[in-house]
Structures are given as C-alpha cells and as structure tokens.
C-alpha cells in the first residue's frame, strides 16, 4: 500500500495547493491519509449559494483501484443526495463499475460540485425531489433555500 499512500499524499498536496473552486480541503486527522474533510461553498448562481457544505471523502485501502466514498455531512436538499444524515451521493463516476484508477479525488470533488450546479433528476436517489426539480422548480428552489437556512449556514 505504499504506492497508494504515495499517490494519496500527492493528490492531497495538489488539492491543498490548488484547491478546486469553492472548496477547502484538509485531513480529518493528521495521521490518517484516508479521510478527507472538504468544505464546499454552494456554487453562486444556484439555490445552494450561501450554503456551506461539509463533505467527507473516504479512500478505501485499495485506492486508487477502488472508488473513494464521498458523503455530504451537511443535510442538503438535492435529487441525487439521500435526504438523511448519511448524505450518500449518486455519482456515475463513483459507481464501482465505472471507477477508473486514473480518476482522481479532485475530479470527483469537481463532479460533486457540478452536481449542485446541475442536478441529474434522471438518475435520482430522492425521486420526490427529482420530480419536484423537474416539474415545480420554484418549490424546489424554495426547499433548497430553506435547507440551506436550516442546515448549511456557516458557523461563525
């Protein structure tokens, strides 16, 4: 696993030096390279703007041969994120059959952010929210904002 540690170190270094847009990345604990804490600012121009989302990235021991596990630690109102405390994300890139070892955490995080800009209601985890997104956008936006207000306000 030495090779994988090396790769993770490298990726982490890259992400900390030049973080993806709207994110700050840090290790959950200095001694464990496999758990990353990411703070994502809701992308401007979306109903998520203003929200601050905490995302956890867990890299399996087999990383990069196996996909990392990415969860929203902050509750979020989104068709592709489970509306519970687990915050599982449905992201094609992370599906085991689609995961390629040459994919990087950075690309994953960018994809997560892109999911907030452009939800994918065709492959939802929350069908009700997906329907609302497709059919009643104002209501959806309102709900997103109320979730932002309730859960995703930056703690000062």
């Amino acid at each position, binding site marked *: 696993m030495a*090779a994988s540690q*090396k*790769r993770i170190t*490298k*990726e982490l270094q890259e992400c900390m030096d030049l973080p993806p847009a709207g994110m700050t990345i840090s290790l959950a604990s200095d001694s464990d390279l496999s758990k990353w804490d990411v703070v994502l600012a809701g992308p401007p121009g979306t109903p998520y703007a203003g929200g601050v989302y905490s995302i956890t990235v867990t890299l399996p021991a*087999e990383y*990069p*041969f196996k996909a990392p596990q990415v969860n929203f630690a902050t509750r979020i109102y989104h068709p592709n994120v489970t509306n519970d405390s687990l915050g599982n994300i449905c992201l094609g*890139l992370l599906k085991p*059959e689609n995961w*390629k*070892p*040459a*994919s990087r955490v950075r*690309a994953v995080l960018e994809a997560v952010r892109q999911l907030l800009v452009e939800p994918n209601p065709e492959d939802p985890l929350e069908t009700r929210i997906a329907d609302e997104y497709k059919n009643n956008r104002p209501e959806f936006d309102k709900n997103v904002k109320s979730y932002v207000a309730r859960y995703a306000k930056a703690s000062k």
Partner: protein
Amino acid sequence: MDEDPRDIELSTITAIYPELQLDENDPHRLSIELPVSLSKPLTVLFPAVAGAAPLAPAQTAPVVTAAADVDSQALSNLPALQVNITLPNGYPQDKPPNVSISTSPPWLSNDIIRRLETEVVRLWEEIGRDQVIFTYIDDLQRSSDDVFGLVDSKGTLEVTPDHKIALLDYDINAKRKAFEKETFDCGICLDPKKGSVCHKMLDCGHVFCIQCLQDFYNNAITEGDVAAVTCLTPNCAKEREKNAIEESSLKQRKPRTFINPSELLQIPLEQEMVKRYVMLKHKIKLESDKNTAYCPRSWCQGAARSKRHKKPEGFEVVDSDEEEDEDTGLLAICEDCGFAFCTRCDQGWHGEFNYCIPKDRKDAVTEEEKASLEYLRLHSTPCPTCAAPCQKSHGYPSNPYKHFNTQPSGDQNSCYMRLWELEGGDGDDVGIDYEGGDAMRNANVAAGQYGEHLEIVQPRAAQQGQGEPRNEAPPAPVPHREPEAPQPAQPQQPRPERVAVAREGPLVLRIEGGAPAVRDQREGGAHEAGAANPRAPPIANQRGNGGRRGGHRGNRQARGGAEINQHNNRNRGQGAARANNNDARVRQAQVGRNGPQNPDLNPQQEAWIRQFVQLALNDEEDLVEWDSDDD
C-alpha cells in the same frame, strides 16, 4: 597555421554531432547515421511484387505509381542513412569530400543515393570550395523530411515489398526507442516514469507504468472483476466510442474495450493470470447466454459445446459476434467431460425420439402431455433398437411398419420382425412366426423348425386329437414334413387355430424371400382356401343349401386374413346366404380342429388339396373343380 584545416573542421563537426564517428585508422574519415524520422506518419505503399518484376529490386524502390492492390502502412521512421565521408588531401581548397551513402536494407534506389552523394560536390562548389561537411549533413537531414523528394503529391511513398518487413521492424524499433526515452506521468501512481517501465495501451494509446497496470489487472482478475480489465483512463471507452461514431457512421459496432489477452502478456502479466482472464471471459459469455446448457454431472457442470462460444484454447479469446441461431437440438455435449446429455430432461442422451419431461418441471405435467403420454403408453411400443415409440396400424401398402417388416438384407435393418419382441402382445395373433414369439412360450420347439415343414390343418387336427386342450397356450406345432407337398421348399404354415389371419404371415414371408411372383393377398386367399377346403367336400353336404357358386364365393371371401376375421361385417351386400356360408365354414374349421373326429385326410382329400395348392400358386384356383359342392 600549420594545422590541417580538415582537423579543425572535424573537431567542430564532432561537437555538433556527437553521434559522428571517426575512423580509427584514417583520421579524415568519418561516418554518421542519419535517421529518416518524419514529423508525421507517412503512408508507405508496398506494391505487389509482380509489378516490380522487370527491374532490379534496388532500382525499383521508390517509383511513384498508382497500383491497384497495394499494401499500405503508416510509418514514422525509415531506416537511417549510413553516410561515410572521406576528406582527401587537398580538401577543402582543391578537392571535394568523397561521400558514400548506404541504407540497410537498400530501400533507396541507386539513383537517389548517387544524387545525394554528388550533392556534396555541388554544395562544395556553391560555398566556394570551403568546409562543407556541416552544410552537407544539415542539407541531408532537411531533405530527409520529404524522403529526398520521393513523397508524391498524395503524400505517399512507394517502396518495394522486398523490404517491407525490415521497414516495419525498423519503424517499430525506432518508436519503441523513442518511447523508452520519453517520460510519462503514470495516471495511477502519479509518478513520472521512464517509457521503458511504461506500457502504452494498444487500443487507445494511454500510458501507464507497468507496475500499476500489473497491480490493477492482477487484482481485478483475481477478484473476478473482468469487466474492469480495460484502459484505466476515465471515460476512455466512452470517448473512443464517440470518436468511432464520428469517424465512420457506417460502423455500428462498439469499439473493443476489453484488453486482448496477448496485450496482457505483453505488459507483462503472469501466464496463469492471463489464462484465468481468458477463462473468466468465456464463462461470463456463457452465463450471459440464456441458451447455455450445463453438464448435469455434479462434479463437472461444464458448459455444453457451442459454436457461438467456443471454449478458448491457449490465450485466444474467440470473439464471434455472429448472432445466428444455433441448432437447438436436444443433444448437448459437455465441453469439459464430453458427457452427452439431453437439454430437456438433463439425463444422459436417450436418442432423438424418446419422450422426456423437461427438467424444470418434473412434477407438473400439462394436460396435453399427460394425454400424449397416456396415448403413447396405450398405443405404442418402443422400437427395441432405437426406442422410437411405434404404433401399429393397418394399411398396406403405405405400411408404417416397413421398418419391422423388411427382411434384413446385408447389414441393415436389424429390427426385422421385432416390433413386439419385448411386448406381451396386443392380441392373440402376435408373435406367432418368429422365434421370439410363441416359440419362446413353447420352449420345447427347437429353433429353426418352423421353416422346414408345411403344416396345414390336418396334421394339426391330428395333434389336437392327441388331447391338447384348445384354450391353453398355443400348442407347439410338431415338426412335420408333408410328404406330398407340391413344393418341398414351401415355408411353414401357421398353426391352424389362428384361422386365416395366422396363415397369411408366413406366406408373405415366402414371397418376400423370392418365391414366384404371385400377389400375396391372392396367395393368402389361395392358401386360405387350401386350408379350409379340405373339408369342403364333406362340409358341402352339411351345409345343405350351399350351392356350388355360393361355396366358391365363400372361398373368395376368405381371401385375406382381415376379411375372414371380420367375416360378418365384410359380406357387403353379398346376401345372408353367403354370410351363413362363411360362418359355417369357420365353424366347420374349428370343429375340424377341435373335434377328435377327422383324424386324417383320406387320399382323395389330399389329392384335392395338392391340386388346389398347385393351382393357387399359379393363381388359378378358380379352376378348381368344386365337384363336391355339386354333390
């Protein structure tokens, strides 16, 4: 300025071209290898050898023609020019350098080489007879970009096919050398790696370090995740698919995304691992095909041999996408253990015609099948040799039992007369005339006796007279050679209690065996008559009202076993008298057989029988004098 200007020039040149080599023996002799590397791949055509035949290979080399069927390859590297330069005494003021150029293989024509060699003189004159080596080498290098003017307007170059292999080899080696010198960032470990420890994916050209590829593929194959054995670049397959669609809309097939086993060996992966990969791929294909049958042997469970999914041999993955329907016969043969089984019932192969119940519903037999099975049980008998259910039905000449009725000739038809061999019988009239039938039940009769005697009613009657109860198992006929039989070779007669039907079989037998060409039905009738008529003279009197004509007709009526069996029904419109007549005859025959009277024929009767049989054989029984009827 005592120094030789040649030495000054050479020291300069060697500084510019470190690959330049000086001759150890002659300090003014140098050689340099100039690679012909092209900035972008050049289409090289190798026209068929036949077209170049009249010219010597060296001269034919790059002649630009448009040939119809040519082999073309895109090459980036052509074999290098080996340039040898000698600087003579008096160079550079008085003499130009001597240059000789060669290539290995000699893919450049002599003309071109001579032109390149003399170029140095022109340059030397052009710069005013001065130091020309650098200028010349530089000029050669530049002119190699368009392969010394040999590339035609279409951007192709023609080379004699003699050098094809060498040129391809050179190109591959040059590319590999260039690749090995390069440095790549492996997308997996993210480390920069020398090309020599990297592998470039053959299909897509992505580069990874060998260590990472080995780790990943070994892991995937060990875990059985064969689908992961593809290029490791995200979306690689998708993008290639997109490109393929853009490039040619005609091609509907998806580009191959899985990695060929031979490439895995190149990376290299362990042979065992690649074997497992091939095996797993085969298994996945079989599993994805719902038609695949598996060997029912619990220790084997191999797949049935299939044309569509051939079992891989070695490292070859047979990738046949043919969607043609396979023959969906029931027979399957395990590709591992060779067991032949039925795909419907999963039992060992039982032949094409045997009825079996599908394995997936052993208990649930549909109404239709139930009816079928019941019918088969009641009305059919399996052929003893091929198990095909057979049903006996009447209907000569379109006889469905030909199979059992045809005498064996040569090596064919071992089922002759064996239709009811394993059967208790479906009536009293079966199994009379061959050894497996009644003879089996009458073990006291030696085999082979049947064919040796002519047996007619009277001897039987005598036998019956010895006290054998009529209704017991049919008594064995006593071998009996009729001394006055008109034809000694005449085959056996049936036992008389079979009435007419029984007598017909042996007659058919005899005819098929090559006896005189008389129609069997008539023959049957004749014998019938012959058997029945011995008592005709005495009967006639008892009948009383039976006129001669009636008696005659009655005999005719008796022709054919079936007719006499159904005597009452078959007297269509012939009048009650004749029906009675028939009845009377049959009764009479039984009386004759059963009764203790009538112990033997009188000589007159015997003579009558002989005459009748003789006439019957000639199909002239109508001419028999029915004098007794007239009495």
